[in-house]
């Protein structure tokens, strides 16, 4: 099925507008800068816990969420910073959560792996690989039963595609023709294990055939390719034709978690993917398209850098929880 147009039965997406392309760029810069800063802060031991960086993968969340409505739902993963930023939450409250402060989205109870903003349809990152996929199916079921026109997108990795929850969820969504989109971020590895040791079929999208839904594999370092595929999948979902599986091939620059040297990855592989950095590549494209002159892109980066610094300051200034706060919000 790989390569089959995901929009089977739906008219192809229109061309992206200049405004859309610029907003995707802004999102990518936000994710990039946020992650760079988070890594620095983590190294400086300002952040508790551990961190799964999505540096290098920015094009997937930016392109995918640009295809979603503000009221659409997403479920995310342990590597979820990009998804939630792209879905539009506030960077200051997100950074505050990484710091474990009361002003954080989860009041310091969740941290990096559990960022959620229900007001933006962000149903939560998740510490359980595959854990968010069935939840997205439930959100899609709810949307269809409430006839709200919302779509639910589940982000997950190449490793997660081998979990039983992936199988059960995609099958259920397919049978019920739910308005859902399954977005696989294939970064070639699950921790140290290369996809070739996790799966015989080259493309995760080939699994769509097992559920009778469209599957497609796109260049996950090309935000417009991601946007186009997800846009078609979303159109299909909203049209009541059911889910699609969109595989985006990309790469994470750092190891599995910040601090993991990632020795299991060949240096040339890492180098090649870094050379294929989605951000400058996209900026070159936007400049070529006359959508975003280099100087403008530079201004965006500066503005975002300021925005992130303010978020860091906000987080640092924010109060720590009181120990007893741990006893709140256990039961409804």
């Amino acid at each position, binding site marked *: 099925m790989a390569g089959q147009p995901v929009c089977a039965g739906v008219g192809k997406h229109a061309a992206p507008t200049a405004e859309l392309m610029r907003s995707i760029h802004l999102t990518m810069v936000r994710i990039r800068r946020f992650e760079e800063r988070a890594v620095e802060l983590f190294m400086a031991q300002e952040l508790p816990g551990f961190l799964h960086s999505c540096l290098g993968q920015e094009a997937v969340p930016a392109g995918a969420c640009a295809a979603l409505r503000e009221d659409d739902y997403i479920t995310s993963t342990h590597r979820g910073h990009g998804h939630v930023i792209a879905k539009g939450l506030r960077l200051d409250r997100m950074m505050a959560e990484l710091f474990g402060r009361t002003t954080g989205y989860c*009041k310091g109870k969740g941290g990096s792996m559990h960022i*959620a903003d229900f007001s933006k349809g962000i149903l939560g990152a998740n510490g359980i690989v595959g854990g968010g996929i069935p939840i997205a199916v439930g959100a899609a079921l709810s949307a269809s039963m409430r006839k709200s026109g919302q779509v639910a997108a589940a982000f997950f990795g190449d490793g997660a595609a081998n979990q039983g929850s992936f199988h*059960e969820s995609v099958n259920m969504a397919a049978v019920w023709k739910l308005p859902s989109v399954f977005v696989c971020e294939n970064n070639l590895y699950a921790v140290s294990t290369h996809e070739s040791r996790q799966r015989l079929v080259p493309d995760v999208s080939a699994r769509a055939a097992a559920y009778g839904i469209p599957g497609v594999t796109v260049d996950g370092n090309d935000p417009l390719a991601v946007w186009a595929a997800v846009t078609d999948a979303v159109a299909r979902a909203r049209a009541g034709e059911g889910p699609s599986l969109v595989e985006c091939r990309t790469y994470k620059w750092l190891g599995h978690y910040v601090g993991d040297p990632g020795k299991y990855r060949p240096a040339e592989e890492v180098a090649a993917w870094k050379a294929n950095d989605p951000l400058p590549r996209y900026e070159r494209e936007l400049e070529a398209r006359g959508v975003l002159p280099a100087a403008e892109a530079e201004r965006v980066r500066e503005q975002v850098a300021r925005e992130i610094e303010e978020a860091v300051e906000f987080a640092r200034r924010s109060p720590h929880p009181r120990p007893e706060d741990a006893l709140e919000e256990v*039961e*409804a």
Partner: protein
Amino acid sequence: MSNIFYKEAVRDALREEMRRDERVFLLGLDIGRFGGTYKATDGLWEEFGDERVRDTPLSEAAIAGAAVGAAMTGLRPVAEIMYIDFTTIAMDQIVNQAAKLRYMSGGQAHIPVVFRTQEGAGRSSAAQHAQSLEAWFAHIPGLKVALPATPRDAKGLLKTAVRDEGPVMFIEHKLLYNSRGEVPEDEYLIPFGKANVCREGSDVTVVALSRMVLRAIEAAAELEREGISVEVIDPRTVVPLDMETILASVEKTGRLVVAHEGYERCGMGAEIATQVMERGLYSLEKPVRRVCGRNVPVPFAPVMENYVIPGAAEIVRAVKELL
């Protein structure tokens, strides 16, 4: 009052709640036209249709997860896991997601989901279809756990469960579905955390769960003939747990038996006994006695199954040993 089956009480509770609130819907295996393995959803599909009485693919993890996702986004699902033994397949969604998402999201997630399932031995269905695992769920913060013993409680507690704003494990008992009992004609709810003193007594307190409540009442009747006065208490929910009622009774009797089908080791009996000791040790004249499922898998052959699952006789013996 009308006299109905436990399974009808479950069905009536679901019907009333579905009529009252269109956000309430059911999903699970063969709960639709088939009416559920124990016929507890019989007739609901005819009234509410495919949308609100959803037969699912054979995928417990997705059933539970879809219920969690639907609950977080404005609906009030009641997901059926056919046997509590099969929650082992849905455990991540129940324990790591449903029970924790509200907390992990700093109170944002609102997850009014009910997981209906049934437990218990007594049908020679062997080790994978006869467990009583309430203690597992009681161990996990964020879940409420209800165990109705009568049609009246099944209806009143289930309506409360559906209206609860958080995840509830609603654990029925497979041998109770065809038991009958009086149920009020008018609408009623039974609050969580309020024990039922099924029978007052002064010599010994018996706290029993689920079907063991009936065995305890039998035992009490038998003991009364011998002049022994037994107080039978059914907590009805183990989370929240009405320790006040239990402690008050133990203060009166000084003797406590805890009875349930679940494995004794690390079962609810240990928790109740420990809390009694922590808060009422000095009113205890004798050690608490546990009358529980033995620490073995449930065997198939009736003679062995009856041996590992306690009945009224074991309660009678335990009570006498305390005197």
